[in-house]
């Protein structure tokens, strides 16, 4: 394992979107999508040790992905969370930041800016 690479957990319900994003992130030399999940249950099946950044779209089929922010940080206090979603309002921002997310981004963000936000999130710990 390259210690300089940030290891990412990517959680989003839409398979093609999530897998595309994982593919794009893995083109970056300093980033590695080490885990993917499409639901709260799938995420809970993952051994969360070793995650640097958890990227979470909270709109999941079996529950609100916001609960995962706390669960990830409890399982791994070094992990940092970034929430991204097409449906963001002030309440969602407050909920995400209140749960411990470092940053919150809408999904209309250019993908290059999104990648920079992941780096910033990983560096903020």
């Amino acid at each position, binding site marked *: 394992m390259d210690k300089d690479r940030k290891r990412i957990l990517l959680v989003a*319900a*839409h*398979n*093609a*979107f999530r*897998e*595309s*994003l994982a*593919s*794009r*992130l893995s*083109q970056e030399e300093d980033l590695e999508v080490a885990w993917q999940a*499409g639901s709260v249950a799938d995420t809970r099946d993952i051994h969360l040790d070793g995650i640097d950044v958890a990227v979470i779209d909270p709109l999941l*089929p079996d529950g609100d992905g916001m609960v995962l922010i706390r669960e990830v940080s409890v399982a791994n206090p070094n992990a940092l969370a970034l929430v*991204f979603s*097409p449906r963001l309002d002030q309440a969602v921002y407050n909920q995400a930041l209140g749960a411990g997310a470092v940053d919150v*981004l*809408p*999904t*209309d*963000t*250019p*993908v290059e800016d*999104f990648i920079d936000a992941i780096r910033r999130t990983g560096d903020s710990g």
Partner: protein
Amino acid sequence: MNGRLHEPEEGRGTAKMKVLLALEGEYRTYMEAMAAAIREFRPHMEVVAISGSLEDLEAETKRLEPQLIICSPPVPENPVDERLALIELSPDSAQSTNFRVGERHWQSANPTLGEILSVVDETKGLFRASREQRG
């Protein structure tokens, strides 16, 4: 992941197939990532990604003349539905995505990137066959 990720040898040819990807602006991150993924796994394609109105989609379709369009519903009938293949990709994973390649239609719930790439490959096969028929 279902479907083939890597391009089959027989799928490669000299003619460059064109793919137009058009999703609503609120899914820009995902759209740009999908365009990058198709370029990575199918480097012999020209992939153009736009976000905008239905009029923008129609105008880009006329300009680019893509063989495959991947767009979020609703889809205008002309000229978009005249292309070789069409994926009406629902941004909502709970809603089915509609596929059409030539005369074949089907639906898939929450398709994978591999399923999208399989349609790219199948469309390329049709594209090559149509070019060969025209000589």
